[in-house]
C-alpha cells in the first residue's frame, strides 16, 4: 500500500527534515498529531495537500503534474526527460533537483530517485494536471458496458477482456486511430490538446459507430478519442492528450521566474521619497486621531464608519478617499482608535494612541507599517459594494480578507528581489503568477494592486522601489525576500544551515527598520524662526519639550516637514492662563528663537498680559456686606469666624465658602444681628416655623419686624394651611367662591401674583380657558416665568401652567 510506504518514508526522515516539513506546512501540526502515522495521514488529506500545492511555484508544480500523469513511481531520468522536453529553454537541471528537494521537504514527493512517487492523495487533489483530461479508465466510467464493448469491437477487434480494458489498451497507443479520422476531426482534437481538455458539442451522448460516423465529432466519439462526459460536453482522454502533446506534459515551461520589467530608479532618491511619505503617513494618522479625539464619528449599527464621516475626514485630511480609508484602517488595526463612548458608540483614540504619540516618528512609523503588513483587512475595498450591493464602509467587519497579508508579503517580496527597480504592475502580477500559479483570480490581482499602491502611501516603497527601511521592515516581520521564492534561494541550503529558514533570514538581516528610517527623517530642531507677521516657523520637527511649549503659546497653522505656528491674542492668553508670566514667555521666546523677537510680537505679549487677569472671578457660597468697615474688621478678627473661611474682598465685602443660612446662623451665634439678602438685594426673613426645602427662587419674605404682629400671624396660619393641604395624600377640589370673577389691569395682576409667590399665599384668579370660557380658580402660585404662572390649582387638585395673558384678575383669599 502506497500510504504505508509513505508513512514509512516519513518515519525515515531525519528530525531536521521533519522540522523542515512542519515549519513549511504548519497546518500539519495544528493540533499536533499523536504519531507520525497521524502526521502522514494528515499530510495526505485533501485540504493539507491543497495548501501545500498552493505554495508551489510554476516549475515545481509542473514537476508534480508531470509525476501525476505517470501511473506509478517513476525514475528520476524519466522525469528529467519529460521536464526537459517541456522546458522552453535551458536544461532541466539544476532546477529539477531543487524542485525535488523542496517537494520531498514538503512531503509531496517521496521515494528514492529510481522510484519517485507522489504522496498519497496528491494525484486526486490535482483535478486536471497540466490541463490534461482524466485517463481512459475514468473518463468512460459512466458509459454503459455494452456501449464500451461496441466501441472496443470497432477499434480493437479481436482483443479480449472487458470493453473498458480493451478500450484502454487501444487508446494507450492512439496513433493508428488518429490516422483514421479526417483532418477536421484532427484539428478539433488539436484545439483540446493543450487544455482545457473539455469542449462543448450539442448532443454529446449520441450513439455512433465507426461505420456510421459522419461528422468529425462523430468520428472521434465512435473511436473513443473523445469521451462524452455530459449532455453537451466531451473530454479528451489523458492518454490521447499526452500523445497529441508529443510526449511532453507541458508546453513552454519556464524554469526560472519571468524577469521583472519596469523603470530603474536611483535607490537613494527612492529611499528619500519613501521616507517623506512615511513621515506624511504618520502625520495623517496622528491628525486623524487628533480630530477624532474632539469630534469622534459615530459607530454604524453594522459596525463601520459612516460614508459621510468618511467624506468629511477625506476633506479634513486633504487626501484621496482611499488614503483616508487606509489611515483609518491602519489606525484601527494598530489599536490607536477603537469603538468606545456612549450607548451608540463612537470611534475614539485609545490610550494606546497616547503611548504611540510620544514615541519617535521612526518608531511610530514602524508600528503602523508592521500593522499594515500583517493586517487581514483590505482598506482598498472601502467604497466598493458587497455581493448584496451594499456599500462597504471603512472599519466594517466585511473588509477582512485572509489572503491580504499573504499577498502583501508576496508583492513586497517581488519588489525586494529587484533593488533599484520600479517594476510595472503587470510585471509584478506575472512574477506572482509564476510563484504561486494556483493562487490566481480577480481578487488576488486586486489585492496586489492595493498592496502596491498602499505600500507607496505608507512609505514602504518610494517611486515604486522598495526602500531601505521597507526592506528592514520586511526582515523584522520575518518576510525575507526569498520567503516566497522557493527554488532559487534554496540551492545552498544543504550546506550547513541550521534551524528553520525564516530564522536564518531574520538573523541575516536583523536591522531595526526604525534605525534605517530615522536618518532620512527630518532631525528634531530646538529653535524656531519668529517673524513680524506673528508666525513662528519650526524648520523641522521640534524637540518634544519645545513642541509642547509652542503648542501652548501658539496655534499650529500648517504642518509637514516644518511646522508653522501663529501667535494670537487667544494663544498668548492661553499660555498666560497656563501659568506663564509675560516676562517668562518673552524670555522663552528669546531663548528658542534663532532670530530676534519681532517688536510686534513682544508688544502683543505685553498687551495681552496687560489685560490678563484684570478681572477676577471666583466662587463664594455667601457674602457679608456692611457699610461699616470697622465692623467687618471685627468679624474677620474674631477667632470664631475661622471655620467660616472668610475672605475680605473689599473694605465693605467679605466672601465666605459656607452657605447663606450657615453664615447667618454662625454670625448670630457670634452675637451679631445679620439679615439675609436676596439676589436682588432685598432683605428676606427666615421662616418662623419648621424648616422647608431650600428652594432657590422661592424665598418668601415679609417685611422685617419685631415681635409677632397680627399680619405675620395671619401669614403664618395661611402658610400652615397651605403646607397642610400640600401634605394631604388626597386632594379634594375646592369649590370656587361665589361672586364675580376678579378682574384687574395686567400689571396689577402680575404684581399681585408676585406678592403671592413671595408670601406663599393662595389667591383666587379669573382665568379664560383654552375654549375662551371664563373660569375662576383657587391657586397656590409657585413661580412665574416666560409669560406663564405655575401653580397648584386647588380647584382641580393638580399643578397647572397658566398663561398670564389669560388671567383676567387676581384677588387675595382671606
Amino acid at each position, binding site marked *: 500500500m502506497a500510504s504505508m510506504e509513505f508513512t514509512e518514508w516519513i518515519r525515515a526522515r531525519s528530525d531536521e527534515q521533519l522540522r523542515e516539513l512542519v515549519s513549511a506546512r504548519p497546518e500539519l501540526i495544528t493540533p499536533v498529531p499523536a504519531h507520525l502515522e497521524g502526521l502522514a495521514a494528515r499530510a495526505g488529506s485533501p485540504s493539507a495537500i491543497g495548501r501545500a500545492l498552493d505554495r508551489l511555484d510554476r516549475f515545481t508544480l509542473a514537476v508534480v503534474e508531470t509525476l501525476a500523469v505517470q501511473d506509478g513511481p517513476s525514475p528520476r531520468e524519466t522525469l528529467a526527460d519529460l521536464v526537459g522536453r517541456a522546458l522552453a529553454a535551458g536544461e532541466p537541471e539544476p532546477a529539477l533537483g531543487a524542485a525535488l528537494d523542496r517537494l520531498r521537504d514538503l512531503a509531496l514527493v517521496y521515494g528514492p530517485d529510481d522510484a519517485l512517487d507522489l504522496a498519497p492523495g496528491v494525484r486526486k487533489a490535482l483535478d486536471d494536471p497540466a490541463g490534461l483530461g482524466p485517463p481512459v479508465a475514468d473518463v468512460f466510467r459512466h458509459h454503459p458496458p455494452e456501449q464500451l464493448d461496441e466501441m472496443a469491437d470497432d477499434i480493437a477487434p479481436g482483443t479480449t477482456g472487458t470493453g473498458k480494458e480493451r478500450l484502454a489498451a487501444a487508446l494507450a497507443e492512439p496513433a493508428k486511430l488518429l490516422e483514421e479520422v479526417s483532418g477536421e476531426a484532427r484539428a478539433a482534437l488539436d484545439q483540446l490538446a493543450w487544455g482545457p481538455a473539455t469542449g462543448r458539442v450539442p448532443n454529446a451522448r449520441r450513439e455512433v459507430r465507426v461505420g456510421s460516423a459522419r461528422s468529425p465529432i462523430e468520428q472521434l466519439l465512435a473511436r473513443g478519442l473523445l469521451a462524452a462526459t455530459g449532455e453537451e460536453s466531451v473530454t479528451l482522454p489523458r492518454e490521447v492528450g499526452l500523445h497529441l502533446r508529443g510526449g511532453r506534459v507541458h508546453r513552454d515551461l519556464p524554469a526560472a521566474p519571468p524577469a521583472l520589467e519596469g523603470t530603474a530608479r536611483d535607490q537613494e532618491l527612492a529611499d528619500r521619497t519613501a521616507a517623506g511619505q512615511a513621515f506624511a503617513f504618520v502625520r495623517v494618522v496622528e491628525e486623524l486621531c487628533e480630530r477624532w479625539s474632539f469630534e469622534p464619528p459615530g459607530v454604524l449599527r453594522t459596525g463601520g464608519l459612516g460614508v459621510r464621516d468618511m467624506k468629511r475626514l477625506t476633506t479634513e485630511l486633504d487626501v484621496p478617499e482611499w488614503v483616508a480609508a487606509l489611515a483609518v484602517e491602519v489606525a484601527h488595526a494598530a489599536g490607536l482608535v477603537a469603538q468606545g463612548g456612549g450607548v451608540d458608540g463612537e470611534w475614539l483614540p485609545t490610550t494606546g494612541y497616547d503611548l504611540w504619540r510620544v514615541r519617535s516618528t521612526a518608531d511610530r512609523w514602524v508600528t503602523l507599517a508592521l500593522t499594515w503588513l500583517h493586517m487581514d483587512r483590505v482598506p482598498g475595498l472601502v467604497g466598493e459594494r458587497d455581493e448584496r450591493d451594499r456599500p462597504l464602509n471603512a472599519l466594517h467587519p466585511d473588509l477582512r480578507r485572509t489572503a491580504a497579508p499573504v499577498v502583501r508579503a508576496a508583492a513586497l517580496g517581488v519588489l525586494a528581489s529587484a533593488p533599484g527597480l520600479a517594476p510595472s504592475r503587470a510585471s509584478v502580477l506575472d512574477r506572482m503568477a509564476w510563484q504561486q500559479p494556483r493562487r490566481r483570480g480577480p481578487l488576488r490581482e486586486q489585492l496586489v494592486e492595493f498592496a502596491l499602491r498602499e505600500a507607496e*502611501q505608507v512609505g514602504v516603497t518610494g517611486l515604486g522601489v522598495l526602500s531601505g527601511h521597507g526592506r528592514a521592515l520586511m526582515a523584522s516581520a520575518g518576510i525575507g525576500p526569498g520567503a516566497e521564492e522557493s527554488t532559487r534561494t534554496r540551492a545552498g541550503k544543504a550546506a550547513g544551515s541550521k534551524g528553520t529558514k525564516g530564522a536564518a533570514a531574520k538573523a541575516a538581516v536583523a536591522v531595526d527598520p526604525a534605525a534605517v528610517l530615522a536618518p532620512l527623517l527630518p532631525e528634531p530642531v530646538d529653535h524656531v524662526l519668529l517673524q513680524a*507677521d*506673528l508666525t513662528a516657523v519650526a524648520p523641522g520637527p521640534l524637540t518634544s519639550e519645545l513642541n509642547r511649549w509652542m503648542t501652548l503659546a501658539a496655534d499650529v497653522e*500648517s504642518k*509637514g516637514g516644518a511646522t508653522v505656528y501663529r501667535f494670537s491674542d487667544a494663544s498668548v492668553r492661553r499660555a498666560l492662563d497656563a501659568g506663564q508670566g509675560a516676562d517668562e514667555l518673552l524670555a522663552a521666546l528669546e531663548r528658542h528663537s534663532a532670530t530676534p523677537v519681532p517688536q510686534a510680537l513682544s508688544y502683543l505679549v505685553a498687551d495681552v498680559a496687560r489685560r490678563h487677569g484684570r478681572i477676577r472671578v471666583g466662587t463664594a457660597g455667601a457674602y457679608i456686606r456692611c457699610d461699616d468697615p470697622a465692623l467687618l474688621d471685627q468679624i474677620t478678627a474674631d477667632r470664631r469666624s475661622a471655620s467660616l473661611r472668610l475672605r475680605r474682598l473689599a473694605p465693605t465685602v467679605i466672601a465666605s465658602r459656607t452657605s447663606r443660612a450657615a453664615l447667618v446662623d454662625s454670625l448670630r451665634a457670634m452675637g451679631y444681628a445679620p439679615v439675609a439678602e436676596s439676589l436682588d438685594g432685598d432683605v428676606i426673613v427666615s421662616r418662623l416655623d419648621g424648616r422647608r426645602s431650600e428652594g432657590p427662587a422661592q424665598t418668601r419674605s415679609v417685611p422685617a419686624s419685631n415681635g409677632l404682629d397680627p399680619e405675620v400671624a395671619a401669614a403664618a396660619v395661611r402658610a400652615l394651611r397651605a403646607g397642610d393641604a400640600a401634605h394631604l395624600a388626597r386632594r379634594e377640589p375646592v369649590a370656587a367662591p361665589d361672586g364675580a370673577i376678579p378682574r384687574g389691569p395686567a400689571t396689577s395682576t402680575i404684581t399681585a401674583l408676585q406678592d403671592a409667590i413671595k408670601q406663599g399665599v393662595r389667591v383666587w384668579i379669573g382665568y379664560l380657558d383654552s375654549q375662551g370660557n371664563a373660569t375662576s380658580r383657587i391657586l397656590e402660585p409657585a413661580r412665574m416665568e416666560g409669560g406663564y404662572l405655575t401653580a397648584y390649582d386647588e380647584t382641580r387638585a393638580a399643578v397647572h401652567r397658566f398663561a398670564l395673558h389669560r388671567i383676567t384678575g387676581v384677588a387675595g383669599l382671606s
Partner: protein
Amino acid sequence: MSVNDGPLIVQSDKTLLLEVDHEKADECRKAIAPFAELERAPEHVHTYRVTPLALWNARAAGHDAEQVVDALISHSRYPVPHALLVDVAETMARYGRLRLEKDPVHGLILTSSDRAVLEEVLRSKKIQPMLGERLGADSVVVHPSDRGNVKQALLKLGWPAEDLAGYVDGEHHPIDLAQDGWSLRPYQQEAADAFWHGGSGVVVLPCGAGKTIVGAAAMAHARATTLILVTNTVSAHQWKQELIKRTSLTEDEIGEYSGSKKEIRPVTIATYQVMTTRRKGVYSHLELFDARDWGLIVYDEVHLLPAPIFRMTADLQARRRIGLTATLVREDGREGDVFSLIGPKRYDAPWKEMENQGWIAPADCVEVRVTLTDEERLAYAMAESEERYRFCATTPSKTRVTEALVRRHLGEQVLVIGQYIDQLDELGEHLNAPVIKGETRVKERERLYQAFRDKEIQVLVVSKVANFSIDLPEAAVAIQVSGTFGSRQEEAQRLGRVLRPKADGGGARFYTVVSRDTVDQEFAAHRQRFLAEQGYAYQIIDADDVLGGV
C-alpha cells in the same frame, strides 16, 4: 546619507516654506516662482502656495510637471511626500488635455488628446448648450460667442482648456514708445514681452512699479486700436497724460469715455463705472466694445474688475487682453475667472525685490495705539454693535494723535487717509489742510493733487476716493485713521500711495492710528498681518510716545 541642505520645506498642505537667508534661496526662488504663488513674505521664511491655478499658470508658461517635481525635490530640505508629487503631476496634466482651436471649416472647435476627458466634459449639463456638432471622436464645435463661457465652465470642472484659437489683429494703429529721456525698466520690458508671447494674460506688479508703462509697451507691441478700462475718472486722466508722455500718441488720438465725456478714438479709456451703468436693467454702454475693431483691451487693476465686466469679457475672447494688477488676490475669490477670461499670469515680481532694486520706495509701517479716555470707553461699551467701529475709529483721541504725527513730520508731504467724512472734515479743520472726498469735483481734486505734487500743499486729507490709481509720488508719509474693516486689498492700495520712488530717494512712513482694546484693534491686526506678510517692517507704539516724545 542624510537629508538635503536645501532652503525649501514642502508642507503637506501644499505650501512651500523658503528660508530667505539660505545661500541657495535665490536660486530656489527662481525655480519655484513659476508654479507657486508667493503668499507671505515676512523677514525670514517666505510662504509660497502651490494651487491648481498656479500649476496651470506654469503649464501655460511652458513648464512641465517634470520640471516642477525636479525643482521641489532638488531644493527641498526634507523628503517630499510622494503623494504631493503625484498630485502636482496629475493637476498639471489636466491643463491642455482640452484645446480650443481654430478650424478652417467649422470655426472654433474644442479638441482633446484624451477622449475620456472629452466624454466627461460633454456629459456636463453646464457645457452642453455651448457646444455644437460633434466632429469625430476627438473634437466638437464651440459656438464662437461662448468661447469665454466654455473656458470658465471647463476650469470649474477642473479641465482648463488651452486657448490656441488665436486673436483678431484688430484695426491697425501706429503706436510707439517715445523713450526720450527715459527708458523701459528691464522688468517692464520683460513683463510686456511675456504678455505678448503669451497672447493674453495678467501682469502682476506692485503699486508704483509703473504698470501704466507696461500697458503702453503692450500697446506698442500690438500697434492696434486699444480699449483701456480703468477704475475711475482721475485714473483715466492719469492714463491719458502718461500715454501722451510715453508714447507717440497725441491728445487727439486718445478718447475718454466716462460719465461726462463719451469720446471714441483709436485709443479709448473707459471707466468700469460707466461700463457697468445700467439703464432700465440694460447695460447702456455695451456698444463701446463693438464701436471699433479693438486690437487690444487693457484692464487696469484686474483684482477690482466688477462682475459685469467679467461677463462682457467672456464675449471678447477673440481680442488680446492684458490685465494689470498689484495682486491676484481677489476678496471675492474669483481668481479662477481672471485666469480663464483675462488669461494666465504672465509676469510676477515680488514687492520686496522691486524695493531692493530701488524701483519702489522702502516703507516703514507704524501702528499707533491710542488709549481711549474713560468717557470714550464707556460710550464705546454702550454703542450699538453696528456703530462700534465708527465710534472707535473716529474718537477725538485719534485726532490729537494725528495732529501730533503731522507736527512730527513737518516739512514732509503728508497724506491723511480716512473712511468717515465727518472725521476727515474735522481733521482738515484741525490740520488746516484741504479735504478730498466723494463730493469734491474732479477738477478741484486734480488741482489739489497737483498742488500737493508741487509741494504747495504739504498736508492733504483724503477719503477712500484716493485709494486707487492716483499718482502722488511725493507723499512720504501716510497716516491712516480709519478704513474699511481691515480690507487687505485696501491696505495694499493705501500703502501704494507712498511707495512711489521719492525724488530724494528717502523711505516712506505709513502710520495707522488705532484705538486700543476695540474692534479697531482687531481690524488693525488683519492689516498688520498683511503688511508683515508683505515683508514690511512693522512696529507698534503707544500714542503717549507720539504725544509726549516729539
